[in-house]
């Protein structure tokens, strides 16, 4: 009964989305208040129905209803309850439902938090989001219904969620990632609404900014989590593989990053409008493209969902409509570019423009590398694959330039070039970073490794220039009065500096051994002695495992015991490697079991990972910076104002939320 209810509410949500995409839009074109006022109730309806639908699917998982095909494929009664729940979005159908739910959630949030924006704009934004929603709901209902039943011969026991995905990481990774992907739909909808209304001004940019920031922050958190999960779950100690699907999340992140900066210029200075709109379209288009790549089966990837061509065709048509439509609109409606530079050579505008150019070039490089195999193949050139060497070759130099420029950013000013005084200050910062940047690898690594010097110098350069600016500004106006958007920016830039150290030092100073170890054998790595004490049999809830016992000695003292597992999941006899990691501030010790080699000996993989945790710490700081910026007073004042201005509130939610906004 519940699955039918879920299916039915899914259809009802579509019934809300269709009028949502049409009525408010016509209302806005004709300036008809009544028609525009349909938007909010329809949004609420859509959201409520999708929540119900999602809850029904979750209930089917929790109650082990194996008559539902999707549940039978991805869950069984022995699975721990938290994985039953995360299995809801563990495969194609359910994750798509999550997509749709999050989209309607964002739409709902826009409806609630935009009471002080012009009615036409809100009506258009919500309509555009309704159109996107139609696409996804149709996709669900026509090609990927998660509620399809296996009747009358329903199985007594289900299959199993892929063991790789039975992990805490999977509980949070997809929802965060989708929050980011889908969040860009808000900036996209604002851009399209502005193009439709012909009001591409600074106000539009200001309204888009918090939404873009928060989507980008979610995406950052999602990517960081995914990368960390790959690191400890895949058992080979890598954290980024330039896999097509990783790239699919990284491209919107890069473009979103460019968009955040470009929106700042449009907001403050009213320039780069066409470019900013294009970026907003671009960021969301790349999110959609990512969805296409994962679900259509055109690329091979560890992430690829089981896919069939009908689904691929559907998404491709949808891509054509959304991206083609919006780019056509852009071509017809975007303001022509006026090339009258009203800013100096080293002004903040120029720096941000350069930031944009580099980030977009980086995104295009990744796009090219990702699609190149596909392009060559469809032109009849056979199968090739593009690997990390390509990406590293083009990506690293681009980023180095970006990092150098970043050091100039805090001190730069709108319109004007910086003064001589500032130049001297920057020169000192550069000297300091270079000095420490050379010393550090010399002391830590014992030799002058050029890559390490470069990374340390660039990272310090960003950190020092940022810190100096923070101190100067803080002294001038009091640290408590610095705006949160400023602090958020500082935090994100500092996170980047941390991340640079992590990425560079991990790839330079890490060591790895793949060895055959019999009980009693030991090996030295990174100043530690790893001793293999044999293997124990352990039983989990839905797997049984061989658990290696590896003692790690520092000097003569036993410092740690690591217990990596080789698991066999019982339902489908799938085997899995569970690495054991001892995490430290400047290094991780990482041990994974390979294959048994007979006579109690095992293939064992031992890693010494220098500074690896810095990668994710940096990424998290960037995300936190994004979140912090959104809580800036600038955005809350609007909520407070909406209380004073008498607005006819037709539901309590908006009132409550505006109160909360003012107090928070």
């Amino acid at each position, binding site marked *: 009964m519940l699955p039918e209810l879920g299916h039915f509410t899914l259809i009802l949500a579509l019934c809300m989305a269709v009028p949502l995409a049409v009525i408010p839009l016509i209302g806005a074109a004709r300036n008809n208040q009544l028609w525009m006022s349909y938007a909010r109730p329809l949004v609420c309806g859509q959201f409520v129905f999708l929540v119900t639908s999602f809850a029904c699917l979750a209930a089917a998982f929790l109650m082990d209803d194996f008559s539902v095909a999707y549940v039978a494929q991805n869950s069984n009664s022995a699975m721990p309850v938290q994985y039953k729940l995360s299995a809801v979005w563990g495969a194609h159908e359910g994750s798509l439902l999550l997509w749709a739910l999050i989209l309607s959630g964002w739409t709902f949030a826009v409806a609630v938090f935009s009471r002080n924006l012009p009615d036409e704009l809100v009506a258009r934004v919500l309509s555009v989001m309704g159109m996107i929603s139609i696409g996804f709901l149709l996709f669900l209902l026509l090609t990927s219904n998660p509620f399809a039943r296996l009747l009358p011969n329903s199985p007594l026991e289900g299959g199993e969620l892929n063991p790789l995905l039975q992990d805490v990481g999977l509980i949070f990774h997809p929802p965060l990632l989708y929050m980011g992907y889908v969040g860009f739909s808000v900036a996209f909808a604002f851009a399209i609404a502005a193009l439709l209304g012909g009001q591409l001004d600074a106000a539009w940019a200001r309204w888009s900014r918090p939404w873009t920031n928060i989507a980008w922050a979610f995406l950052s958190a999602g990517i960081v989590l995914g990368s960390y999960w790959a690191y400890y779950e895949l058992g080979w100690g890598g954290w980024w593989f330039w896999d097509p699907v990783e790239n699919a999340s990284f491209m919107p992140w890069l473009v979103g990053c460019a968009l955040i900066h470009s929106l700042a210029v449009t907001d403050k200075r009213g320039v780069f409008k066409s470019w900013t709109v294009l970026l907003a379209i671009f960021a969301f288009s790349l999110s959609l493209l990512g969805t296409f790549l994962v679900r259509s089966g*055109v690329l091979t990837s560890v992430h690829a969902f089981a896919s069939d061509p009908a689904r691929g065709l559907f998404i491709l048509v949808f891509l054509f409509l959304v991206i083609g439509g919006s*780019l056509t609109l852009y*071509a017809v409606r975007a303001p022509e570019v006026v090339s009258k530079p009203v800013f100096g050579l080293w002004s903040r505008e120029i720096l941000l423009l350069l930031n944009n150019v580099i980030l977009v070039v980086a995104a295009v490089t990744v796009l090219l590398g990702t*699609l190149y195999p*596909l392009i060559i193949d469809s032109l009849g050139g056979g199968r090739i694959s593009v690997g990390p060497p390509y990406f590293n070759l083009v990506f690293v130099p681009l980023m180095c330039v970006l990092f150098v420029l970043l050091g100039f950013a805090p001190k730069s000013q709108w319109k004007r070039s910086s003064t001589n005084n500032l130049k001297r200050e920057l020169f000192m910062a550069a000297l300091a970073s270079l000095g420490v940047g050379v010393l550090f690898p010399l002391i830590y690594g014992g030799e002058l490794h050029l890559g390490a010097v470069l990374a340390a110098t660039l990272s310090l350069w960003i950190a020092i220039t940022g810190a100096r600016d923070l101190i100067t500004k803080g002294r001038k106006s009091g640290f408590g009065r610095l705006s949160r958007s400023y602090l958020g920016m500082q935090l994100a830039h500092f996170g980047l500096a941390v991340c640079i150290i992590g990425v560079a030092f991990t790839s330079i100073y890490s060591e790895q051994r793949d060895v055959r170890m019999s009980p009693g054998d030991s090996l030295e790595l990174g100043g530690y002695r790893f001793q293999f004490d044999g293997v124990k049999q352990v039983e989990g809830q839905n797997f049984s495992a061989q658990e290696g016992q590896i003692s790690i000695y520092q000097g003569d003292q036993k410092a740690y015991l690591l217990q990596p597992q080789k698991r066999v999941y019982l339902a489908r*006899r799938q085997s899995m490697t569970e690495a054991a990691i001892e995490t430290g501030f400047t290094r991780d010790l990482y041990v994974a079991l390979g294959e048994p080699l007979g006579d109690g000996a095992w293939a064992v993989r031992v890693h010494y990972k220098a500074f690896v945790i810095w990668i994710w710490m940096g990424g998290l700081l960037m995300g936190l910076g994004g979140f912090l910026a959104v809580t800036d007073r600038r955005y809350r004042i609007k909520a407070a104002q909406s209380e004073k201005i008498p607005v006819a509130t037709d539901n309590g939610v908006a009132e409550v939320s505006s109160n909360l906004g003012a107090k928070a």
Partner: protein
Amino acid sequence: MKRLKLFVPLIIFIALGSLLLKGLELDPNEMPSALIDKSLPEFRLPSLENPEAMLGRKDLLGQVALVNVWATWCPSCRVEHPYLLQITEQEKIPIYGIDYKDVREDAQQWLRKLGNPYVANVFDEQGKLGIDLGVFGAPETYLIDQKGVIRYKHIGVVDDQVWLKHLKPLVEQLRAEASQG
């Protein structure tokens, strides 16, 4: 003229989109093997059924045949198994098995329980022959001619579609060639 520039993103997207459309028709699992039209590699490994008996490349020659890489730990092999039984029955084509990185008792029991479509099974415990063949993962199926030259390789489950579209036409062609020459 300036307005025309704004159409550039659209044009680029349309070009990209048509490539993606083309990409939908291609199957990324179709992997050309480096061994196509090369001879089956030499090996000397025990038979699955009888650990004393050694099998070699010569034992697989003489007829157009399928060589199927399988294992008991491979869920897709279980899916494929009934179809292999069906084609030996209906098409009269010998199938040689390579039991890949497996446990002998498990594999023997599997064949007793599910039926045995194979003329003979090579027991490749260490995966050595698998390396020589460039096996990605079980199941994989190779089509060899009577001289032991690999003519086709399929990665993944052989089913009706794969058999009718790729394997069967080639089998018939090879048999015709063999009877002429």
